[in-house]
């Protein structure tokens, strides 16, 4: 058996391990092992690649692996869970950059048209992913303003960039020996990534990082075509599919189409005043305690505000006290409750909340009528009944958690300011809603002291 055969078999084994690892990610009980299986697959693929007879000098390979490995390990250890969206955004960008470089380096004078097209694609997708992700990272980490950046003539500029990208890509494929076209493709795809993400507002970043995640996979896939390597194609398309599915889920949860997110700023919301009947009924933490003490079924609906207030650990403490008091406690998680898909679940898991207590929106809604107290912590739009009741509302049609169906609703809120989308929330005026004003962490602290 030749060494070439051995390498190819290594790639087949690696692909199988990636697939099996992703399959094990289908359940929280096996997920950690699945990640390990996938990592072993990567190790096999890297060892197989190192066996390549074409390698004459390992210096640069070892240097690259040592530097990259150290940076990656450090980042993985240091990162706070609240900052996961930024890290994923940045990693998407690095993946894109790597594919861009591989596509570029794969260019040989004797490349055929098919290879040239795939080289252009890996440079193009890689470049867009790189700068798009950097902008997304800047917005998520608030190094750049998180708002949408728009200017007059933006459409025209964008159209020109797209035309320029297409023209230079075609010219490159026709005339690969002229490196001016290559540099144009690289430069314009980098510009295009920036232009594509700056007009998208901070609230839509979960969609954008899901989509860029998909692009980073597609870029690897294109690089796989450029160098004729099937393990890149398999792994890249798995990542591409994953990103696309998450993008769809996020769009559905916001009741918006992908093109609506990508091409229209969040600003175009109609500011029609909706008639909200009823009055705000504040409640003190002491009175809230008496109601909670009598409750046998409690649902907690967290939003990103809970993470901002760093309240997840006190929430877990309250949850334990309620359970000791004989109540059933569940968490209702809206798909866009955090800043990336599944973010809220990770934050609660970090605070030791068991995953079987974390219910998806579709699981918790049918149970809401039997809930005695629903506690809304730092969430607003995802529990807004206007999405179901008021047709003129900009979020009408968005799936929400129906907290108003519970017997009593507590809303923990700093003040009466509107949510991210600036939409009035009729929930606050409902007959069975009580507002617990103040810092969420402090309010829950008072409840915990009352219990113990």
């Amino acid at each position, binding site marked *: 058996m030749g060494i070439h055969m051995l390498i190819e078999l290594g790639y087949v084994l690696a692909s199988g391990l990636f697939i099996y690892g992703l399959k094990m990610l289908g359940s*929280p009980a096996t997920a*950690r092992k699945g990640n390990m299986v996938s990592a072993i697959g990567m190790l096999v693929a890297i060892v197989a690649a190192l066996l390549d007879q074409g390698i004459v000098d390992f210096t640069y390979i070892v240097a690259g692996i040592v*530097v990259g490995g150290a940076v990656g390990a450090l*980042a993985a250890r240091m990162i706070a869970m609240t900052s996961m969206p930024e890290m994923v955004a940045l990693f998407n960008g690095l*993946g894109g950059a790597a594919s861009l470089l591989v596509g570029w*380096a794969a260019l040989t004078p004797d490349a055929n048209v098919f290879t040239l097209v795939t080289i252009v694609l890996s440079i193009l997708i890689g470049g867009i992913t790189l700068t798009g992700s950097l902008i997304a990272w800047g917005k998520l980490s608030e190094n750049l303003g998180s708002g949408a950046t728009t200017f007059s003539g933006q459409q025209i500029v964008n159209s020109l960039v797209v035309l320029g990208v297409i023209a230079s890509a075609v010219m490159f494929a026709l005339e690969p020996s002229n490196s001016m076209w290559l540099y144009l493709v690289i430069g314009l795809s980098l510009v295009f990534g920036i232009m594509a993400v700056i007009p998208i507002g901070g609230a839509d970043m979960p969609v954008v990082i899901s989509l860029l995640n998909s692009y980073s*996979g597609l870029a690897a896939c294109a690089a796989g*075509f450029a160098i004729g390597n099937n393990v*890149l194609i398999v792994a890249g398309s798995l990542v591409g599919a994953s990103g696309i599915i998450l993008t769809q889920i996020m769009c559905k949860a916001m009741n918006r189409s992908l093109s609506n997110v990508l091409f229209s700023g969040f600003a175009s919301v109609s500011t029609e005043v909706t008639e909200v009947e009823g009055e705000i009924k504040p409640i003190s933490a002491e009175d809230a305690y008496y109601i909670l003490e009598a409750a046998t079924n409690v649902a907690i609906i967290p939003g990103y505000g809970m993470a901002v207030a760093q309240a997840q650990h006190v929430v877990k403490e309250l949850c334990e006290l309620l359970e000791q008091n004989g109540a059933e406690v569940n968490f209702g998680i809206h798909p866009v409750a955090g800043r990336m898909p599944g973010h809220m679940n990770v934050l609660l*898991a970090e605070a030791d909340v068991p995953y079987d207590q974390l219910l998806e929106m579709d699981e918790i809604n049918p149970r809401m009528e039997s809930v005695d107290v629903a506690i809304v912590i730092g969430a607003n739009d995802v529990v807004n009944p206007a999405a179901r009741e008021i047709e003129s509302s900009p979020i009408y049609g968005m799936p929400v958690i129906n907290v108003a169906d519970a017997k009593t609703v507590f809303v923990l809120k700093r003040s009466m300011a509107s949510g991210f989308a600036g939409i009035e929330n009729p929930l606050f005026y409902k007959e069975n809603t009580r507002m617990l004003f103040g810092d969420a962490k402090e309010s829950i602290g008072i409840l915990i002291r009352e219990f113990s």
Partner: protein
Amino acid sequence: MLGAEYLLFILMLSVFLGFELINKVPATLHTPLMSGANAISGITVVGAIALAGNGNADTAQWLGAAAVALATINVVGGYMVTDRMLGFFKKKVG
């Protein structure tokens, strides 16, 4: 070098497989799925290794070496942070 039609065939099958697999991942694991996917997209390191080791001291070698470093950040960082996150997920005892 493998033929284009063979590579396209692989692409089609793995796209379908990807959709089937990922649709079964529960919402509670979507963040680890994404960071794990980040790690997998670091597979570009495999392509970069051959280019970085060509020994020609040409542009391709430099680009390859840079790509090895970037993709390794993805691989190592992605798998480690995913493992850290999945370690938090515990089932209710009792």
